[in-house]
């Protein structure tokens, strides 16, 4: 028997990643919706609070972060729910690959489809808000480190709510409070840069958070899926 048939962490990761990525690639509607939502909500704020350039520059990083958070949150229910509904999640659990491998692969695919496009788009939105070039780069860097944490935390919450009543609102109640520290440090990094301070403290904390989340949360997601399939 070959090593691949026995199952391995990289094997499971690559399998789940390419599967979810291919599904998203063939139905691009969902990813486009997330990006459209992000751009739309970010464009509503200047209309709501007034287009004064100093005010926009001041609130820009925070608004873009909140929009990214909501956009990442909106795509969460799809992460495991469809696989749970049609039974493929159960089949994956029975596969030879260790669970943590394919769970990490699914989370990584989720980030590539939501977090990465938002990070890439954020400088454009930041220009609309009139942010300085250096602030813009810090904002994009913070989003690049922060959005994977959102995907990891969101994966745990979405796995916990599998089969629960009141899905969407319940998911909001679970996930959004857990997102708060990421929001504070992420927006704080750009604000520190904008006010002439070094953003390295906030970026380091975000990085530390990402390391801890990457180590701990996939295991928690596995436990949550096992609970759901019990």
């Amino acid at each position: 028997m070959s090593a691949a048939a026995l199952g391995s962490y990289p094997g499971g990761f690559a399998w789940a990643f390419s599967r979810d990525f291919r599904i998203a690639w063939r139905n691009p509607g969902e990813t486009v919706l997330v990006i459209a939502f992000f751009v739309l909500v970010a464009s509503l704020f200047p209309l709501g609070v007034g287009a004064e350039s100093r005010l926009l520059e001041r609130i820009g990083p925070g608004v873009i972060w909140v929009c990214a958070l909501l956009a990442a949150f909106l795509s969460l229910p799809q992460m495991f729910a469809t696989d749970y509904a049609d039974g493929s999640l159960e089949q994956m659990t029975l596969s030879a690959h260790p669970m943590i491998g394919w769970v990490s692969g699914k989370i990584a695919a989720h980030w590539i489809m939501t977090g990465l496009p938002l990070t890439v788009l954020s400088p454009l939105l930041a220009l609309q808000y009139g942010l300085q070039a250096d602030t813009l780069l810090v904002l994009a860097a913070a989003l690049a480190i922060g959005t994977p944490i959102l995907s990891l935390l969101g994966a745990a919450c979405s796995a916990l709510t599998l089969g629960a009543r009141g899905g969407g609102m319940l998911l909001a109640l679970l996930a959004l409070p857990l997102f708060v520290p990421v929001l504070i440090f992420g927006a704080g990094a750009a604000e520190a840069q904008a006010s002439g301070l070094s953003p390295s403290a906030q970026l380091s904390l975000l990085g530390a958070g990402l390391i801890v989340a990457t180590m701990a949360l996939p295991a928690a997601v596995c436990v949550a899926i096992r609970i759901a399939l019990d």
Partner: protein
Amino acid sequence: MNLFYFSSPATFYRLAGWMAPWFFALALLLGIAGMYYGFAVAPTDAVQGEVYRVIFIHVPAAWMSMFLYFVMAVYSGVSLSFNTRLGAMMARAIAPTGAMMTFVALWTGAFWGRPTWGTYWAWDARMTSELVLLFLYFGYIALSNAFDDPRRGDRAAALLALIGLVNLPIIYFSVHWWNTLHQGSSVKLTGTTMHVAMLTAMLLMTFSFWMYSIATALTRVRSIILERERRTRWVREL
């Protein structure tokens, strides 16, 4: 006697029924003593005047809000790793009291903040993380009731409690890590900067809140046990 004798809901039901009134009585006694020390013995604060007396509610409630979450997470961890029923029921029984303590801490803090800081609310690190704690309690309660199978709710909510545990050190150390509006703690293991009568009152109130939390959790766990075990013979024979 076997230590696990009381880990069966049927035996614990009787033990909890016997213990709860004692804890209520202790809470009442300690509360009366704490109020007496707090309002009659403790001197007026030199800077804040009489308004500082909110501390005798505010600080015990804030301590309890964090401590109860920790206890809830420990019960959750035990119930997940040993697959016990009673542990999950205890965690469920603690959550509403913990949420109430968090709310009381935030509410009294707002009333204390208005005359002393000039504002009901500030987006300071400690208040924000305490608010997040309140939402964690709400999320725990909502998730544990979101499933038709109560055991499923137990397990999912237990895992959520363990994930949310990360917030506790953030609340506790927030005033040390960030230099914000909320002051640091005046009480440390190595000594205190408070008047003895104030400290006595605060500790009495803390123990009173603690005993009250135990009593309410025991009372609540009794009804949870009855609800879950309603089809068993021992409940029908009650």
